[in-house]
């Protein structure tokens, strides 16, 4: 592998100083499951890797009345095992259980998944559906970006050279809220989404009417897509299959998939409808406190 130096700062300030180099020369290392492979195969050629796993802010995982704070370097296995995340931010657990295999989940982080900015990233639609905000720090200070605005193209995002994604912040879900992420792949595990959909749904006190919803589509455009009109069509409507079907054409309308080896445009557009109905059914079941008929990978 290419020769590079390694530093493991213990403060955010040190990390920002170390990363303030011309573009590409210094790279943050979280789980390394993409980075180390990309350095080995020559796709990236950094001179220094800045291990961000020893910085307290990047390891934060705290849920409370003000919401969830998720440090950008926290690995998928830790997130999926966290009780409050399981109870209130379930779509994140769905994502973290199907990114790579178990070995990858021990290392890979949701922050890293977002920073790689793959259009088919499994965690980004969940982060968007749950209303996540990205806290970014650099030499110029700290700023926040909504998760749906973070990715700008395949492998591209709003991070400027030297900037670091520090944490993801999620609002506390309202009572009777459920969320879900599911993807379609031609096998049960270890594959890249042909289409992936993350949804979050809130019901009224009767558990019959939808009062709020967010829908995010993955792998059907250059970036994950927030399907605003489709979500809007659910508001004030009964939580039934008939309602979900009304959102389907609106979600399909904003999908701009490509033909590739994983699926054709038409097939992906079709899948958007199938997966949207299934993910809404599961999210609504969770909002009612029921256990949906879902197993990771199916």
């Amino acid at each position, binding site marked *: 592998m290419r020769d*590079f130096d390694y530093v493991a700062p213990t403060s955010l300030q040190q990390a920002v100083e170390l990363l303030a180099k011309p573009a590409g020369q210094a790279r943050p290392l979280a789980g390394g*499951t993409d980075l180390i492979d990309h350095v080995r195969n020559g796709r990236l050629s950094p001179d220094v890797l800045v291990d961000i796993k020893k910085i307290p802010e990047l390891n934060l995982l705290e849920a409370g009345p003000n919401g969830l704070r998720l440090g950008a370097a926290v690995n998928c296995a830790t997130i999926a095992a966290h009780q409050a995340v399981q109870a209130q931010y379930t779509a994140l657990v769905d994502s973290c259980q199907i990114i790579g295999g178990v070995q990858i989940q021990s290392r890979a982080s949701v922050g890293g998944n977002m920073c790689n900015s793959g259009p088919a990233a499994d965690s980004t639609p969940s982060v968007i559906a749950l209303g996540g905000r990205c806290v970014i720090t650099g030499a110029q200070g700290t700023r926040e970006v909504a998760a749906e605005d973070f990715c700008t193209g395949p492998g591209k995002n709003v991070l400027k050279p030297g900037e670091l994604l520090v944490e993801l912040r999620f609002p506390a879900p309202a009572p009777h809220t459920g969320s879900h992420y599911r993807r379609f792949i031609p096998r049960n595990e270890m594959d890249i989404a042909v289409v992936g959909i993350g949804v979050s749904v809130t019901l009224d006190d009767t558990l019959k009417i939808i009062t709020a919803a967010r829908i995010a589509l993955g792998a059907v455009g250059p970036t994950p897509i927030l399907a605003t009109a489709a979500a809007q069509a659910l508001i004030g409507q009964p939580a039934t299959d008939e309602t979900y079907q009304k959102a389907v054409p609106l979600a399909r309308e904003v999908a701009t998939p490509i033909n590739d080896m994983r699926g054709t445009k038409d097939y992906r557009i079709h899948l958007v409808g199938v997966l949207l109905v299934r993910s809404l059914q599961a999210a609504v079941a969770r909002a009612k406190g029921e256990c949906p008929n879902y197993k990771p990978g199916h």
Partner: protein
Amino acid sequence: MAKKRIVSTTINGDAVEFLCEPRQTLLEILRDVLEMTGTKEGCGNGNCGSCTVLMNGKPVTSCLVLGVEAEGVELRTIEGVARGSELDEVQQAFLEGAALQCGICTPGFIMQTEALLACNPTPTEEEIRFHLAGNLCRCTGYDKIVRAVQCAAERRAGACHK
């Protein structure tokens, strides 16, 4: 060349120090520096699971971990599984069930099975297949591996009841 550094770690319960370039993977350190060649390299990019070791109890593909990241962690490799000259239940079940042919993937499968049984001592077949999805075997067709894991789990459960 980036400066070499000394890394202090624990492998299979023993304190170990090694000299490491930042670009060396944990897999390279285990095999080429420490001469612990039980851990195998398959794909070298995290897809096949042959190089699986346990890092602080969690399974990782050691080809995607830098040697320098092993500072202060607890590692468990295939060399630490047997109790002296006695194979553990997982190894014994793989051997008796012929859950291997060429054997290159086997240390990874055994480490991944150890991780599974540590957190889920009585997995269903579906859970076994899901948990082992990150380990590839091009010889067996997986059925004998799944049966060996079931057998090891049953034997451990039996041992606990005694």
